[in-house]
Every structure is written in C-alpha cells, then in structure tokens.
C-alpha cells in the first residue's frame, strides 16, 4: 500500500537525480549522464505515481495535492525534452527547481483525501482530460519561466518559448475539448460556462493572442514576453485561483479538492 507518508522516499531520490542532471548540464559535461540521471529521476517519481494509482484504485488526479504530483513529474520531463531539442544548459535546473517547489508543497502541506472518486468523475474521460491539462500546464509554465529569463538576462530564447507555447496551446485545446465531450456525455451540455470553464476559455484566448502576436508583430518581443506572464497568471487563476475567488464560490462543478 502506497500513501503520502512514503512520498519523500521517492521524491528525495528523484530530486537528487534531477539536480545531478541539472548541474552536469550546466557545466556542459557528460551528456549521457545528464540523460541517464534525468530519466532515472523521472522513473523513480513515475513509479510513485503508478503505485499511488494502484493503491488508490483510481488515477491520482482528484485533489490539488494529486495534481501537483503530475506537475512535479511533467516539469522535469518538459525540461528534458526542451534540453534535448534546444540545448539550453540551464533549463534542467529551472524545471528541477520549480518541480522541487511543488514537491515541497506536497511534503509540508499534504492534502489528505478520501479514497473514493466521486461518481461524476468515474469516467474514461477523466484521466486523459486532466493528464493532458497537467502536461499543458507544465509546458506553458516552462515557456513562462523562459520568458522571465529572457526579460531579465536578455538571452534570446524566443524559438523555444514559441515552440513550448505552441505545444502547450495544442494540449490546452485538447484538454478543453475532451472536457467538452465528456461534459456532453455526463451532463448533456458540452459547455456550461461554469467558472472553471470561463477561466479555461480566457486562458485559451490569452495563449491564442500570444501566438497571433508573434506572427503578426514578430518585432514586438518585449510585449510578447510580458504577455506570457499574463497568460500564465490567467492559467493559475483557472487551475487553483478560482478556489479562492468569491465570484466562483459554490458555482463551479470543478471544485473537488
């Protein structure tokens, strides 16, 4: 039986692996070791998610704590993919640091939860809907961090930011549409503008604006980078902000945590 008490047993070695990979890539040494170490960390962390899945008898996707688990997993994964494609030496350190923040939140403020998934969530759509969204969050999160880096350090990372945003937007779109198809099946309407859906639409529009801005005004780099930050704030609102938003209280079908 796997539970949150054992989390640190997996999280700690995973973070150590990712940190080793980050430091090696930062020094530009031992390419093979970088990959080995980063993938090792992913395997360890992935194993914990898999064991949780088995012991909970449902995908661990229902509470904020559980979704943070996926976020901590996908961030280093996106970091590694970005690294293998664009060779930014610091990206692994970045994604590791952010992932560690989420791991620490889970370690020190675990949200313990009941075992049963509520009936509305017992659907084959549930896992793809949330996993796709978590991947999109991780990708766009990486794009936002790179935007901040470029704003501060003036290193040109636009190609990677654009690429990650495109990947992120495509996953946001798929997650949103899976949600619509699922809602149609479960409640008879594909879109009911509940607060989570409204913020998902706003976030989606914001990333669309970024994409169109980059195409229409490729020279306007600084506004685009600042816009990335706004997009990400919108995304945070959609992800967990609405739980604290007075206007959304009691009005959303998406507050399960």
């Amino acid at each position, binding site marked *: 039986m796997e539970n949150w008490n054992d989390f640190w047993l997996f999280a700690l070695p995973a973070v150590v692996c990712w940190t080793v990979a980050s430091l090696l890539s930062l020094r530009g040494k031992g390419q093979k070791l970088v990959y080995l170490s980063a993938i090792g960390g992913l395997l360890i962390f992935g194993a914990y998610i898999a064991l949780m899945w088995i012991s909970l008898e449902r995908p661990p996707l229902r509470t904020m704590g559980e979704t943070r688990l996926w976020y901590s997993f996908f961030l280093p994964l996106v970091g590694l993919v970005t690294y293998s*494609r664009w060779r930014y030496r610091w990206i692994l350190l970045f994604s590791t640091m952010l992932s560690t923040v989420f791991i620490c939140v889970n370690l020190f403020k675990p949200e313990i939860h009941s075992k049963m998934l509520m009936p509305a969530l017992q659907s084959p759509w549930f896992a793809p809907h949330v996993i796709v969204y978590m991947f999109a969050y991780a990708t766009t999160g990486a794009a936002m961090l790179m935007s901040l880096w470029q704003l501060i350090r003036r290193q040109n990372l636009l190609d990677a930011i654009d690429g990650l945003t495109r990947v992120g937007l495509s*996953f946001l779109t798929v997650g949103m*549409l899976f949600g619509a198809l699922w809602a149609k099946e479960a409640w*008879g309407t594909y*879109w009911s503008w509940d607060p989570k859906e409204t913020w998902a639409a706003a976030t989606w*529009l914001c990333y669309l*604006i970024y994409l169109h801005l980059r195409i*229409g005004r490729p020279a306007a780099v600084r506004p685009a980078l600042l816009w990335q930050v706004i997009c990400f704030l919108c995304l945070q609102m959609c992800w967990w902000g609405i739980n604290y938003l007075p206007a959304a209280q009691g009005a959303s079908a998406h507050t399960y945590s």
Partner: protein
Amino acid sequence: MTVGGYVCCGLAGAGMLLQVVAGPVRWGMMAWPVNGIVLAVLLLSVVAMHLCRSRVRLFRWMATLQAGIPALVACAMMTVLMGVTRQVPSGHVPMEPIGITAMLSFWPFVLLYVWLMALVGMVCMTRLTRPAWRNVPFLLNHLGIFIALVCGTLGNADMQRLHMMVREGTTEWRAVDELHRVKELPVAIELHDFFIEEAPLRYLSDVTVYTKKGLVLRDTLRVNKPLAVRGWKIYQYGYDESKGAESDISIFELVRDPWLPFVYLGIFMMLAGAGCLFLQSGTLRKKEQRQNEMPSERNVEISK
C-alpha cells in the same frame, strides 16, 4: 492595431447602448427558424464581404491580424470580466443594472464575440479560395472554432431537454420541460416492465418506442445506455423512489439537440488542428510569418 482597438471599443459602446435600450439579449428568440436565418445571413455576408474585398478596404483589413488581435484581446477581456463576476443561472435576469452578471446575454460581450467570429470567417475565406495542403492545419483550427462556436450558440435555443414519466402497461407521449410546461412529442414510449437489478443497483426499463411515422422499436433502457430515435435521445433517468424496487413508474429524459452534429464537426476539426499545431510546433513560425506578411503587403499596394 489601433484601428482594431477603436472598432472593439465602438462595438462595446454600441452594445452598452443596446443593453440600455433593448435590455439583455433574448436568446430564446433564436429558436428555429430564426437561428437558421441568422446563420444564412452571417455566412452570406462573410462571402459577400470577401467578394468585395478588392473594392472595400475595411473588408480586406478584416482578414488581417491587425483586426484579429484586438478582437481576441477584447473577447479575452470580456471573458475575464465574466470570470471575476458572479453569474446568475442561465435564463435568469441579471442581478445588477448593467447586466454583467448575465454575461452571455450582455450585448457588448455578444457583439465582440460576433465580431471575432466574423473576422475568423473572413480569414477562412481567404484560405478557402486558395486551396493548398499547407492551409489544412490553419483551416482545421479556424474553421473548426467558427463552426463549433457559431453552431453551438445558434443551436442552443433549439435544444430540448424533457422528462417523461411512464407507468407500467401504459403508453405516454407527453413530457414536461424545465419550467414544467407540458409538451406533446412525435415520439411515444410504452413501458412493459420496470425492474431494478439489486446486486449492481442498475435499473432497467423494457420499452417499445413508437414514432408518428410508424416506426416501432423494442429495447431495454438503462443508465448510460440511451436509445436514439428520430433525433431524440432517450435516457433512463429515474423511477418512483418512494416505492424503490417495487416502482411501477419509470422516468425518462428525452434530449434533442439538432445542431449537435455540427458542433461535433467543429470540435473534431479543432482536435485535428491541435494535433497539427503540436506536430508543427517547431517549424511553423517562420512559414506562418511569411504567409501572413505577404497579404498585408499586397493590401498596402492595392490601397495605394
């Protein structure tokens, strides 16, 4: 882009005026055939504007990002506004004088989204009239959202969700809507038997469904296994809970959403479009930039 911003401000202003004069948008009036006419008018005006684009600068401009980006920003702002205000349930009157608590019926919101969709329609026309394989991802995304959003919005008024209560051994063709109004349907249901399988707590109805055109269907209905008859979907919904397993009454939900196939078409186009976006995420940028800068340059030449 400034012009685009002014247009959006103008639309928002005009919307406010309409809101004050005419009150919130009455979506109920959109029921067939009104929504069909509105759709025809929308499509015809998009085609007409596209055909007149060489003479009218505005129409040419509508298919550019200079018009599109401000429209996207305006719609995003309205959506955020909706996100931070408490909304009344659909069909209710707003709880403050401006109308933003019933955002979906708020004229500025509606007009800005209509404007955005008009622009999307225009830009689709420019690609549709120059068919090429490289336009496919673009059209999947843009035409997809156009179809899904326009048909979803216009079709909403045609969606019917009724509840029908049938006693064992009888045939029923009347149902009630959400406001408890009785409706006569072109579909009738005869309930032969209703029973509850105690072990898995499943309840089933043995029924025969008749339609006005003489179609007869015998089937067993249960939760998550609806029956589709002549545009209606019949769901097992409930039973007389006071009698439990002894209930001789079965309650069905009948849903009709004639625009749904179009909305699904749009949704699946968008899904395919998202797949294209993902696959091309690394290579698309420069090509897209070239493609998009060309028409605007040509436009400048024409307008000179």
